[in-house]
């Protein structure tokens, strides 16, 4: 999901940079003010941990494999501000040391994977686990749902940025990115939940004693929320107006849509008028995304049921290593 250099135009890159700087600044300030002094090395080494975890391959099918992104994992294990700092550091190092992700696209990449993904995931994790009762099973359901949603949201944001830059038309980028990442998100959710379950069984206090970190999450989250919402308005809202409206749909059906194609230039918001054939995927992706979200929630709940045996839940009861438990093939 790393955007390389050359794919974003100047306004999009600058908008991403401003949002990333503001978010990272807020995270740095919050971490410095609220986390204890001795959390500083932990954040640095945890960033190395996320980078290392991203390198572990998970076999998918037919020789292909996937890997973790880790944004929600970082948010759940370290808290939102530390997660923003950790994910941003990983992206900065990848851009400058390994040429993975562009330097001019760094702001946009930080917005997608270090602000939007961990923060949305964290809010959903908190919301769902509170909704379902706050025990381990509820938390795992929240982790799974948050990880899936944040992966898809980050992909949609990438599509918006590419479309806004005139690199890839929204009608192509949105279904492709959202569609592929609805599948990738399943893997991300599965890995994140399995890892959190391992940590929770071995060291439950790491998951349940968040209050000890001293971070006053409410006000900070509101600040992040405004930044993320602003970013989504900038990157995605302009595209929403290009979704097929009634007239366009009729025009496409009656076959006079091509008459509206005055200048077939791909690098402008007008591009959709030339794409009568592939305009419907955008709409159907939205519908599929809605259905997918509901399905993802149900699957997240089922996954949490599968991972935590009935009855044996609660913060204070380690249930033996997940490593040794008999695998379930449901």
């Amino acid at each position, binding site marked *: 999901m790393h955007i390389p250099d050359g794919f974003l135009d100047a306004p999009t890159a600058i908008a991403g940079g401003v949002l990333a700087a503001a978010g990272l600044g807020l995270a740095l300030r919050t971490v410095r003010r609220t986390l204890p002094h001795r959390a*500083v*090395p932990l954040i640095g080494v945890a960033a190395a*941990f996320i980078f290392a975890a991203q390198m572990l391959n998970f076999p998918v099918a037919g020789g292909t494999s996937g890997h973790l992104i880790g944004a929600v994992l970082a948010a759940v294990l370290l808290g939102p501000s530390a997660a923003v700092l950790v994910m941003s550091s990983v992206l900065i190092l990848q851009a400058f040391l390994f040429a993975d992700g562009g330097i001019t696209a760094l702001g946009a990449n930080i917005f997608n994977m270090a602000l939007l993904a961990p923060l949305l995931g964290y809010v959903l994790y908190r919301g769902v686990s509170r909704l379902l009762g706050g025990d381990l099973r509820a938390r795992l359901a929240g982790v799974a749902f948050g990880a899936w949603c944040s992966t898809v949201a980050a992909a949609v944001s990438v599509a918006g940025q590419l479309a806004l830059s005139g690199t890839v038309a929204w009608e192509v980028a949105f279904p492709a990115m959202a569609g592929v990442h609805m599948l990738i998100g399943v893997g991300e959710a599965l890995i994140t939940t399995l890892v959190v379950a391992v940590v929770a069984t071995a060291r439950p206090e790491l998951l349940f004693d968040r209050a000890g970190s001293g971070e006053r999450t409410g006000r900070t989250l509101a600040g992040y929320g405004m930044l993320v919402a602003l970013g989504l308005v900038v990157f995605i809202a302009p595209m929403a107006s290009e979704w097929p409206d009634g007239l366009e749909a009729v025009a496409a059906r009656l076959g006079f849509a091509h008459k509206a194609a005055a200048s077939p230039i791909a690098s402008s918001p007008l591009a959709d008028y030339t794409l009568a054939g592939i305009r419907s995927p955008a709409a159907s992706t939205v519908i599929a995304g809605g259905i997918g979200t509901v399905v993802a929630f149900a699957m997240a709940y089922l996954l949490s049921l599968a991972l935590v045996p009935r009855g044996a839940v609660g913060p204070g009861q380690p249930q033996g290593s997940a490593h040794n438990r008999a695998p379930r093939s449901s």
Partner: protein
Amino acid sequence: MHHALRDPYHPASSPIHRAAPPVKLVLAVAFVLAVVALPRGTWPAHTFLGLALLVGALASRVPLSLLGKRLLAVEPFALGVALLALLQPGGLHVFLAILAKSTLSLGAVVLLGATTPFFQVLRALSRFRVPSLLVTTLALLYRYLFVLVEEMGRMQRARRSRTFSRSRWVTWRASAAVIGHLFLRTTTRAERIYAAMCARGWRT
């Protein structure tokens, strides 16, 4: 992703290696900005920047084959996104233009990485008034990245030599356990690092 994780620094004795790191960092970023700011399809200007990069690469005395190999290793990620551009009308032009841009930019970063140790980049960043907490985090990330990747490799090897299942679910759970326990080791390692840092008089 990066299957064999290696520090990209390639020691050699050249004017590029000896140049002041802040200057190199600024030049590399300026080069990328210039490449990105060029209008699509201005091929003479692209060629000129490409030649400038080639001169820099030759002057650095890093084998061109090594730089080329690294460029090829990172190119697929750019290619993957660029392929999306092919799916639209008139996409070939856009595809070629952004591929040229991303290749030139990647070349600049690969050259920077091969000629500048990362700690010098960090020093340059802190000279540019990047917040110290961010620089510290980056320094620790760089320092422990290779350690943790190696540790994870050992855990994964140990797991492989004990698990004889072809079931994907078992593999996934075992790999997730590796990651989970790596995190637990990370937290205890962080405690030791904190103690060691304090013992050496560290203050934020």
